[in-house]
């Protein structure tokens, strides 16, 4: 397949084929940067190595339109390692929209290592959508370490709803300074023999820092998920909340372990964990419309994960 054809497929699956000069974007297939468009205030440097790409990103001012990152592999087999160092400079802000596309995966590894520094008064909103084929066959290892400086904000959302998840080992860590905010969310639909391991953690080090960790996981067939989200609060008036919601159907197994640790009497951290199955009334309503049980469960779960 020609590089251009691969690029078109990546963009097609990710739904990002429409663009304009004022929208920044970067497309990476395997270890090759296939396309890029930068805008003022956004500096991106990349360097390929045999199994992937090292990327350095600097945001020095407010970037208006979301920056699109398109990662992925079109073939059935392969490996993609992405190492990203991102700095959002003081007072700067950006929104990143990343898609990771593995539509034909049989044996694919996608390893993402991100180090993110959000400087004073800066903010980054990061959204990552995975688009997988129906059979799984993917090992996804997203590891992120983020430093949220004074009065800075970081929000991240990981979405894997289309296609089988495969094996996911998500590990996100954040350190938050005074008045900083971190908001991490994962929404995943596991099927077949998918194995999902989620560990989000926020260390609220500064006064008045805020951390919210949310995981909404739905499982069916023989999928398995373990969610271990953790908040540690050191400082006065630090506030945190851990929310794990899991829905299980069939022979799926879910485990949720919220961990909260408070090292300052003036900090306040709460958690909730709920594991349940699809509501029978919802299911029967859709069955009485002629949907099969599988179709009904998919529709209900897709709604719940929205």
């Amino acid at each position: 397949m020609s590089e251009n054809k691969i690029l078109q497929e990546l963009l097609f699956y990710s739904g990002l084929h429409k663009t304009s000069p004022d929208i920044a974007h970067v497309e990476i297939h395997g270890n090759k940067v296939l396309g890029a468009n930068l805008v003022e205030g956004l500096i991106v440097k990349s360097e390929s190595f045999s199994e992937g790409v090292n990327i350095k990103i600097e945001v020095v001012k407010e970037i208006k339109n979301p920056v699109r990152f398109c990662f992925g592999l079109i073939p059935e087999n392969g490996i993609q390692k992405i190492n990203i160092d991102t700095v959002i400079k003081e007072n700067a802000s950006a929104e990143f929209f990343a898609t990771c596309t593995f539509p034909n995966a049989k044996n694919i590894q996608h390893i993402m290592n991100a180090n993110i520094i959000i400087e004073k008064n800066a903010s980054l909103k990061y959204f990552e959508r995975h688009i997988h084929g129906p059979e799984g066959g993917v090992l996804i290892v997203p590891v992120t370490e983020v430093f949220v400086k004074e009065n800075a904000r970081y929000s991240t959302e990981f979405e894997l709803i289309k296609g089988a998840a495969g094996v996911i080992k998500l590990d996100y860590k954040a350190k938050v300074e005074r008045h900083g905010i971190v908001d991490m969310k994962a929404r995943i639909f596991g099927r077949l023999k998918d194995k999902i391991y989620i560990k989000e953690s926020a260390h609220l080090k500064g006064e008045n820092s805020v951390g919210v960790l949310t995981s909404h996981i739905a499982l069916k067939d023989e999928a398995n998920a373990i969610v271990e989200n953790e908040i540690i609060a050191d400082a006065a008036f630090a506030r945190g909340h851990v929310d794990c919601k899991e829905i299980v159907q069939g022979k799926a197994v879910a485990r949720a372990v919220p961990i909260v640790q408070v090292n300052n009497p003036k900090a306040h951290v709460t958690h909730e964990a709920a594991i349940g199955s699809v509501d029978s009334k919802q299911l029967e309503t859709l069955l009485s419309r002629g949907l099969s049980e599988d179709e009904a469960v998919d529709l209900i779960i897709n709604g719940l994960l929205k």
Partner: protein
Amino acid sequence: MSILELKNLTLVKDGKILLSNINIEIWAGYVHAIVGPNGAGKSTLANTIMGLHGYRNFVGDILFEGKSIKNLSIDERARLGITMVFQEPARFEGLAVDDFILAGVKEKKENLIDEALLKVGLDPLKYRKRAVDKTLSGGERKRIEIASIYAMKPKLVFLDEPDSGVDIDSVKFIFEIIKDFKKQGTTVILVTHSPEVLKQSDHAFLICAGKLICKGEVDKMFDYFTGKCAPCNHVGNPEIEDGKTI
């Protein structure tokens, strides 16, 4: 021609007789009403015919278009053309009204959504993208349920208390859509304890304490609502021969 036949239908749960030896023939193409006091077994009857969980171990038989559906699952019955609007509609977090309406429609045409919503008096622009969740009132959910069923064009539909929760101004839309169901060839069974809803039907069945008390013309069934609970005068403890025609 009868589209649905109940033969000696009896349902016992936890030692209690919920439906007692019911024999009913439902004629195709008409609007029928099943009336009776609270707790008579009206919803139970609809749930049993739909095949809901907990209503499957009945004695007797249910024939749809002449064939037994006793051993069919809910979705198999639905694919034959039987469906229902639940007395208490379910809530679906995150499911958009337009996806909900099209869920059971075979030929998914966009304009069906607007048509169905307008039929129940809901503005498509305001409602299509909303979720079918707790942000909608009971009456709004009921109307959306009825709209979704209308879009499906089923052969037979149970509307369980179709006016419950629906405000006075909007009830007229429900009554209109009942006529539209009939026009499109759907046989309607209204499950109700409301005389206003009963008026929308061509033919009625009165049940009490799980028994069919009588069946026949709608006009004559009104005695039941006049407070006398005619023709038997014993609410919850009927003393009349089953299925008498009036």
